[in-house]
């Protein structure tokens, strides 16, 4: 079982990535009860934003200088697109039937994928993403890559910043109020339109950070990278309790760990050889989701309305 520590780290890394993207699903759902299926593609555009910054920078720029600029580039691109879709696609449909924005989200998702495919130079196949030189680091039997270090630091810091923002700032409290009751919040003088934009923007920013981590970890970005990851992140958000920001992170970690451990150990159980391996990991992850939803339909951390933001 000396594999276990490394597999736990693998799971945590994968889970952190799911968590970062899941925040976007959960925040938007918490405030406007919309499942923003285009969020996976917002994540993807963040990755391309970071890559664009890297390509613009003169060759030979050190990663220590380039990385912050790439994160800023990723966040700007993702936030601009997220806010743009909110303004021009979702806002006109607000107050309409629930289905309309949902279908719109799927449409935007396809449109963004195809737009990047068609117009980003070379995006018809995977594009190489720069890597942080150095590493890998060894901790006992655990090996950690430089790209993973970024993810391991970025995820908790992002979570802490988000927690502080929602709990302590005026805008954050406005978000909580809007989540509880949009109409009353409006009567109390909260500009709910602005709050909704902020929710979209924040979600996009975290997705962008996740996208930079994705690029650093796997060394490539492609126009379809947001599709599967977006679905997984959505699953993580439901698992953790959609609408709850801490739930998104916990759900992400649970999902990542479940997938990794299923890959690693199910096949070792006598008689389960056929059902093990990475191709079955998704099955086990969704078995976990079904079990959680059976016993706790509100997700791991519940849909505590008061905390929803």
């Amino acid at each position, binding site marked *: 079982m*000396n*594999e276990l520590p*490394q*597999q736990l780290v*693998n*799971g945590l*890394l*994968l889970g952190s990535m799911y968590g970062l993207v899941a925040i976007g699903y959960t925040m938007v759902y918490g405030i406007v*009860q919309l*499942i923003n*299926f285009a969020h996976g593609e917002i994540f993807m555009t963040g990755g391309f934003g970071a890559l664009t910054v890297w390509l613009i920078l003169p060759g030979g720029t050190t990663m220590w200088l380039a990385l912050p600029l790439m994160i800023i580039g990723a966040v700007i691109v993702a936030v601009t697109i997220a806010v743009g879709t909110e303004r021009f696609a979702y806002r006109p449909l607000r107050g309409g039937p*629930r*289905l309309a924005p*949902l*279908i719109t989200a*799927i449409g935007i*998702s*396809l449109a963004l994928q195809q737009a990047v*495919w068609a117009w980003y130079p070379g995006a*018809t*196949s*995977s594009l*190489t993403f720069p890597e942080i030189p150095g590493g*890998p680091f*060894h901790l006992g039997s655990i*090996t950690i*890559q430089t790209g993973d270090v970024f993810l391991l630091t970025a995820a908790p810091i992002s979570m802490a910043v988000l927690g502080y923002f929602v709990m302590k700032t005026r805008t954050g409290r406005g978000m909580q109020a809007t989540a509880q009751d949009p109409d009353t919040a409006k009567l109390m003088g909260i500009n709910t339109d602005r709050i909704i934009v902020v929710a979209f923007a924040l979600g996009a920013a975290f997705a962008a950070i996740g996208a930079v981590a994705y690029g650093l*970890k*796997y*060394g*490539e970005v*492609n126009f*379809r*990278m947001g*599709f*599967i990851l977006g*679905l997984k992140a*959505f699953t993580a958000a*439901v698992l953790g309790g959609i609408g709850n920001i801490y739930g998104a992170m916990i759900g992400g970690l649970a999902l990542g760990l479940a*997938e*990794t*451990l299923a*890959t*690693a150990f199910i*096949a070792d159980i006598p008689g389960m050889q056929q059902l*093990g*391996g*990475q*191709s*079955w*990991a*998704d099955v086990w992850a969704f078995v976990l989701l079904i079990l959680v939803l059976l016993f706790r*339909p509100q997700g791991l951390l519940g849909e505590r309305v008061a905390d929803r933001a």
Partner: protein
Amino acid sequence: MRQRSLLILTAVLTTGALSLTACGSRDDKGGDSAGGGGTTVVIGVDAPLTGDLSALGLGIKNSVDLAAKQANEKKYVDGVTFKIEALDDQAQPSSGQQNATKLVADKNVLGVVGPLNSSVAESMQKVFDDAKLVQVSPANTNPALTQGQDWNGGTKKRPYASYFRTATTDAIQGPFAAQYLFNDAKKKKVFLVDDKKTYGAGLAATFKAEFTKLGGKVVGEDHVNPDTKDFSAVVTKIKNSGADVVYYGGEYPAAGPLSKQIKASGAKIPLVGGDGIYSAEFIKLSGKEGVGDLATSVGAPVETLPSAKEFVENYKKANYKDAFEAYGGYSYDSAWSIIEAVKKVVDDNGGKLPDDARAKVLDAMKGVSFEGVTGKVSFDEFGDATNKQLTVYRYEGGAWKPVKSGTYTG
């Protein structure tokens, strides 16, 4: 309650979204061939022109286009102008079948080159066979496509008479790699990974059979989902298994990142695969970590064959945006075999296309024999290429370098 029904709805939509991406074919008219008087014969092309495998697919499309252009330029078949109609299957069997139906409906189509994926071919074979429309794949290597499901049990039976291929099968490719690894590279402990697709699983199985027969040991097996990029869990298993080589049955979009992640984990062992990873994209995806990886591919290296020099030159001259990749030569030969068959039919019919041109072309395919880009091109009673040469390539200095060529003998 409303929320719950929303969630259920969402789940349904998610499934819908998953399958949505699989449909929707994007029409690509391909390069227009030079016009001319007389009859127009269309050669259909089906390959993944978008998505992860598009590098290989575009190479196929361009090479067929080149064959059509050359035939027109040389006026190879009197009074016939060749045109291509390229459809995108996105490596999805469902799209492949739709494309097949579309090509069958166009009466000018007398032959089809493609597809890239064995799994796509499975979905197309019956459609073409019902229409007696010739299909020649430059890339399918699954033995069952020509020799029936029981090919390994000894009873070979050709399921569809309209299906031909210029590529060699996995029944030869897997064992060839096993022999090279065991005898030449002295690797004794292998970790097998495949993507569960028709091509990947078949390749891994034939490799395993030969490798264990030679005395090698399989220290672990896993199957991956080629849509994901995170193989960390599998990589950790590989590292701890003590294997000295990894054999991957599948294609480069998963193989590249897999190889990179294996090396990054600290296990400095080569990844070996079939023609599905023999692509410049693999080199891009696996990065500098992939150096030393091996791939087998059908035929002798296209660039070194004297018969191929002309093809490489003409391809360069035609200024295609994309490289001809692993299957360029085979695609050219596939298209040319159709052109040869059309020529025979036209010549036999006094310079005109007969009414039942498709059936006649299908008949003529059996006798086709010419010196192609990849060597002598002709088909045996199953529709398989008679040319059974294979080559092992090693990733060195930013490119695939041929290491050893040979034919597999039982």
